[in-house]
């Protein structure tokens, strides 16, 4: 650091705090509700439904945490460390469920498994059972919600952990094996602890998303903290108490993330990157069959089955829905998701690198708060964006009217700028966690060598980190792209006039219980979501850029 002129240090730091502060405004707007008096509604909530909200949300969180951990880590381990029939397909096929919005998978499974669905109806007819004569798992339940969310959220864990496994140096894993550890012991004692930042990042994304989920739990009739927030706002007509409830949700997530970071405060995760791709254990016989069956059933239940159901519905009356307006929806969704993904990536790179340059409590806190939007339900984020934007527009307008007798009207509110900003607030966490866990693995020694050779901080980022982070950056782009594609509530309330997306269309039809009509736009979301997944596949399919990383390291030595 000594070689940097003070001015540069200051500007990076100031820009970091300022940028993070700007993105945090909506979160602060929501948190500001805590400074307002707590109304009588609170007493009512505490007396009646509050306990249900908290308990159900906690169960949901633990359930989805375990579910995504088991599915994601086992999938990542099998495809990165073992070889079995179909492994190369599962490499990418295990990512597919990410393209399905949670509420859509909930609709499809309800269609199949509900009491009135084809499966139970057939069972009743075949065995002449009546109501209550048999036991069948209730799909519309807390357990059902946990299953649905785990099925579509595990790819976060899979994706990040797999990259971590692939990048773990073979030397470490082989040392473990040569010291007599079995593959299982190597997994639990070496590989998993080393992959902990990636696991933590993946699972916390899944947890935040499940806490913010509204569509699935609402459809299943499960009362969670999120449904409580909306019931308080819509039903009780009390936006202030709803914002206060949201604030407590935020503080809780903040605490969880803090605890996780604190628990690994002394650990370092950068190690020599793998010189060779890890050698896979080739499985044969029943082991290979078991691995295949396991991986296949994940893909089958999380993707193939729901996608097939969507396709069946979509075919019922696709003629009515497949028209020019449909292509406008496709274009809107695609462009919006692409723009938002790039914006989120740039912001994440800037914040993550700034924090690496200047580790400090204020910087750390500023960045943490700026990425909290992910734990908030989309509609709440929208309100947090609506308030400051409208305030800015109206204040500017009032000033212009007073001073110059001209009106600027609403400059930013109700435009795509407000909407893209809302996506940044909501999904920054996704790109940030991905970029950060990538940066963690680059040894600070590399930065130091580069700086001592006279590179500025910006050129270290541009010439060294970005090429080395290639994989993480693509991952971050992909994750946000797919998330925005699926995003509903923020889009719904902030979008401009005459502007619809596939998700909005799907929701409007599905919430009107017109599932057959909703299936076509839903299927389109899934298909467009597949594009970047396929792109990613080509990157993670070949061994992740090890040559580039090695070249970079050699160049610096």
């Amino acid at each position, binding site marked *: 650091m000594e070689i940097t002129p003070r001015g540069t240090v200051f500007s990076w730091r100031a820009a970091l705090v300022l940028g993070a502060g700007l993105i945090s405004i909506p979160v602060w707007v929501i948190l500001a509700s805590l400074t307002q008096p707590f109304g009588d509604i609170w007493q009512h909530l505490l007396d009646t439904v509050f306990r249900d909200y908290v308990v159900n949300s906690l169960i949901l969180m633990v359930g989805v945490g375990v579910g995504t951990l088991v599915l994601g880590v086992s999938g990542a381990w099998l495809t990165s460390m073992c070889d079995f029939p179909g492994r190369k397909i599962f490499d990418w096929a295990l990512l597919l469920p990410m393209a399905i919005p949670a509420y859509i998978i909930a609709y499809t499974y309800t269609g199949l498994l509900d009491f009135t669905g084809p499966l139970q109806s057939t069972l009743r007819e075949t065995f002449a059972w009546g109501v209550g004569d048999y036991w069948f798992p209730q799909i519309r339940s807390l357990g059902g919600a946990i299953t649905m969310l785990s099925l579509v959220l595990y790819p976060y864990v899979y994706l990040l952990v797999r990259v971590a496994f692939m990048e773990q140096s073979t030397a470490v894993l082989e040392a473990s094996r040569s010291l007599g550890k079995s593959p299982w012991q190597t997994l639990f004692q070496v590989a998993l602890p080393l992959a902990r930042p990636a696991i933590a990042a993946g699972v916390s994304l899944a947890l935040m998303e499940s806490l913010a989920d509204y569509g699935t739990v609402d459809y299943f009739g499960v009362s969670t903290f999120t449904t409580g927030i*909306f019931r308080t706002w819509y039903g*009780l007509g009390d936006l202030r108490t709803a914002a206060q409830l949201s604030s407590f949700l935020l503080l809780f997530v903040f605490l969880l993330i803090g605890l996780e970071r604190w628990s690994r405060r002394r650990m370092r995760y950068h190690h020599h990157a793998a010189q060779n791709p890890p050698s896979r254990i080739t499985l044969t016989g029943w082991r290979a069959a078991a691995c295949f069956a396991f991986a296949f059933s994940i893909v089958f239940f999380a993707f193939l089955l729901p996608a097939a159901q969507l396709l069946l519905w979509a075919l019922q009356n696709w003629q009515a829905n497949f028209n020019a307006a449909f292509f406008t929806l496709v274009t809107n969704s695609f462009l919006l998701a692409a723009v938002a993904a790039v914006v989120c990536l740039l912001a994440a790179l800037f914040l993550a690198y700034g924090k690496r340059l200047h580790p400090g409590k204020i910087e750390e806190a500023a960045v943490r708060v700026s990425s909290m939007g992910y734990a908030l339900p989309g509609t709440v984020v929208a309100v947090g964006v*609506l308030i400051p934007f409208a305030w800015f527009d*109206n204040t500017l307008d009032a000033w212009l009217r007073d001073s110059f007798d001209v009106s600027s009207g609403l400059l930013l509110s109700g*435009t795509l700028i407000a909407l893209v900003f809302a996506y940044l607030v909501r999904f920054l966490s996704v790109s940030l966690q991905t970029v950060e866990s990538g940066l963690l693995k680059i040894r600070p020694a590399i930065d130091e060598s580069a700086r001592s050779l006279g590179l500025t901080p910006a050129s270290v980022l541009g010439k060294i980190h970005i090429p080395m982070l290639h994989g993480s950056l693509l991952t971050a782009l992909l994750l946000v792209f797919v998330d925005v594609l699926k995003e509903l509530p923020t889009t719904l*309330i902030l979008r401009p006039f005459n502007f*619809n997306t596939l998700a909005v269309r799907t929701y409007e*039809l599905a919430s009107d219980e017109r599932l057959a009509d909703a299936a076509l736009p839903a299927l389109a979301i899934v298909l467009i979501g597949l594009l970047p997944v396929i792109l990613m596949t080509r990157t993670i399919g070949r061994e992740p850029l090890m040559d580039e990383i090695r070249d970079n390291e050699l160049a610096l030595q």
Partner: protein
Amino acid sequence: MTTAHRSSPWLMLAYATLLCTAGPLAYSATEVNVYSARKEALIKPLLDQFTQETGIAVNLVTAKGDALLTRLQREGRNSPADVLITTDAGRLYRAQEAGVLQPVFSEFLDAAIPAHLRSAEGYWYGLSVRARVFVYAKDRVKPAQLSSYQALAGPQWQHRVCIRSSSNIYNQSLVAGMLATQGADKTQAWLDDFVGSFARPPQGGDRDQVKAVAAGQCDVAVINSYYLGAMVDSTDDAEHGAAAKVALFWPNQDGRGTHINISGAGVTAAATHVSEATRLIEFLARDESQQWYAQINMEYPVRVDIAPSELLKSWGDFKADPLAMTELGKFNTAAVMAMDRAGWK
């Protein structure tokens, strides 16, 4: 900025990104901006018709009622919206209370729409009527066994009734109506018993309740009538089949009448196109539009002089509760609290 630009938000984004801040938005005189809680598919055809006949372009944003209301409040006097359309009376009442609507004076609307289905001062007008009815399994229930919402809480109905969550606005309005007419104690007592009649935890939408009755999971369901209409007309065999196994019953015919709600509209306080906005609401209340509601969405016309569709006629005439819609809005919060206390999920 012209109309062409407003319809292309992508251009807007591009401009702004290039820091060519899009200057003052001068709204063209021949357009009207609508915030609608009614979903696009259920309003757009009428709006298109309006544009075709009058040459007034309609710009539309759809979202949930309360979210639109918050957007209106925050945008304040600069809000581009001219008309707010909601799917229940409670939201219109809230909008009026929040001061985001302005009264309009229309002889046609005042004459055509019954007084209890509009605000007395002209802040909002009902445009279609939605009735909360019973459907029952034809093979297990005789219509003579059914009477009122109150009776559905009786011991003979224990674990036999399907109804959706109390987060649903039409259930909230149903209870709000009872609070307004029966008082808090009677309503609470009814709710406490009624929860015992549930055959399963509340879940799904209104069509799901009909399917559950058809499949035998419950014997009676409480739904909005237009869902049954949509199922009868459905191209989906399962839905059509389920609708064939049930029949409709008009509750409370010996009492105040069946509970109804409205979808409706009002002109916003910030409106810059007041006359176009008023014209649009008048258009939505005219004969052809009223028939459209009945034919396409199976709702009842808000005007008594318009005949409902053939299917609606086949369900017979019914007596509707004459309660002023405003009351549903006033009692909405109290209704949700009462349902919380009763443990209605």
